[in-house]
């Protein structure tokens, strides 16, 4: 198979297939639960459930932000996790090549970031991913919680970041198209993999945190 044939495959039919599986998978898992329904609750809500749901989503990431918590005990987790999420999501949606893709898919006027910012995000994401992975392997508690799923996901994302960087930073000799195609193939795999792995927290995080907030609001308790 020539490199352009492969390129056309990963950016055409395979990408469309991956996106279809992504949307189908994410909504399948969500609606499977929704359709099961909740047991009827006849109590009158004591607080404001919707407000609390939104509030929880917005402030949850900052809830543990005390100096002690961050720097004395969970520095790698907090700082690494923050940098990684910022970098990875920023790159995924706002690097020009990606923004153009999402524009085409969603029709929304997604803004693009300058390359310098893209570079900073990419190195931040890759570095923190590495740190987080090593931390996982060394920290006894995290090690217990970690399965093949996490390592695979970390590896996949790391490879995507790395090939993406290669494609923009390296002239590539005669291999530019292969590098670009590998980057896109891995991204296709990731898109398919997300709904069926813990990476689905990328969507469900907001739903579950929102649900917790909603529950708290209903009972009139604070977080």
């Amino acid at each position, binding site marked *: 198979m020539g490199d352009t044939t492969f390129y056309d495959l990963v950016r055409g039919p395979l990408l469309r297939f991956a*996106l279809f599986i992504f949307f189908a998978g994410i909504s399948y898992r969500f609606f499977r639960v929704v359709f099961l329904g909740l047991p009827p609750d006849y109590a009158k809500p004591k607080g404001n459930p919707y407000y609390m749901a939104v509030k929880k989503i917005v402030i949850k990431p900052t809830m543990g932000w005390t100096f002690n918590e961050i720097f004395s005990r969970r520095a790698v987790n907090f700082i690494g996790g923050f940098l990684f999420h910022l970098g990875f999501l920023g790159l995924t949606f706002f690097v020009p090549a990606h923004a153009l893709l999402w524009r085409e898919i969603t029709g929304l006027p997604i803004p693009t970031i300058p390359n310098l910012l893209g570079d900073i995000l990419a190195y931040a994401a890759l570095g923190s991913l590495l740190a987080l992975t090593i931390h996982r392997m060394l920290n006894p508690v995290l090690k217990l919680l970690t399965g093949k799923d996490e390592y695979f996901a970390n590896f996949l994302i790391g490879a995507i970041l790395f090939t993406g960087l290669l494609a923009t930073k390296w002239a590539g000799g005669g291999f530019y198209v292969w590098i670009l195609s590998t980057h896109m193939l891995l991204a296709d795999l990731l898109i398919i993999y997300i709904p069926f792995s813990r990476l689905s927290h990328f969507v469900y995080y907001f739903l579950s945190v929102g649900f917790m907030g909603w529950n708290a609001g209903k009972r009139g308790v604070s977080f």
Partner: protein
Amino acid sequence: MESLYHIYRRRGYTRRDFLKSVLLLSAVLGFPPTSFGQAVKALELKPKPVVIWLEFQDCAGCTESFIRSTSILPSDVLLDYISLEYHETLMSPSGFYAEEAKREAIEKYKGKYILIVEGSVSPRNKGVYCTVSGKSNVELLKEAAQNAGLVIAVGSCASWGGIPHAEPNPTGAVPVSQILGDRQVVNIPGCPPISDVMVAVIAGFVITGKPPELDSMGRPKTFYGQTIHDRCYRRPFYNAGKLAGSFDDESARKGYCLYKLGCKGPITRNACATIRWNGGLSFPIQSGHPCFGCSEPNFWDRGFIYSPLSVVEGGFGWKGILAGVATGVALGAASAAINKKFREK
């Protein structure tokens, strides 16, 4: 028969002019400096190449490009040098006499002549869609290729099927290599290919007696080893994320990269960015138009000339999203229903 050097002298050029051309040719072909002497000797002594040029499903654009090669050999020398024994567009005889001339040339220069094919081949319905003097194109191709010293497919049509091969391909067009099976074919794709590349491949064959080194798709590595993007002078803008937003905005005038306007340079192998066109004057990207990948297989069917490379080919859009979500909801409902049944039991 005359050699290249003789033609130079007969046309009133100096030896210095001749040496300059050979030097340029060696550079274009990527020969090491040590083989310059060998190249000079070969072009001084070896007779000019005999070429039989067949045209099938083509537009004669490759021919037009070929005769305008000006960087390596002056055009009067070029037209004298390549001994075109048969070329439907350029030769003066026609009908019976033309076919006779071809037959004679094939016999006389058996195993030595270069066969150049322009245009795709159409084997469908016994080749009825493209015939010359009552013979089908497939038959004509096989006949001429059998005794050729080298077969060159010029242009994207002969190399990949090109525009005749585009959906729905009514004539069943195929590339030359598909008809000739095991026989080696040098593909020089492009719509049209760069003239200097065609001339250099022919002259290179005269010098070395061998076809050039080819990649897995039969293209000379020297000219198709890298993408346009690899050698594009706008690459620094690409790397800096400076992309022109439209054909005539401020950023386009500043010469920013044409990625957003649909440039296919990153996936297109050709020598436009190095050898350029019209005697090295310019090339499409230099004149402000994105590369649309004319030298790559199926470039026409990609059908997204002005959309950026990174968009999903064939589109996805809200319809795709809705289709995915609807499938997910249906599956979710089904599984919830099954679960409920189990629970009730």
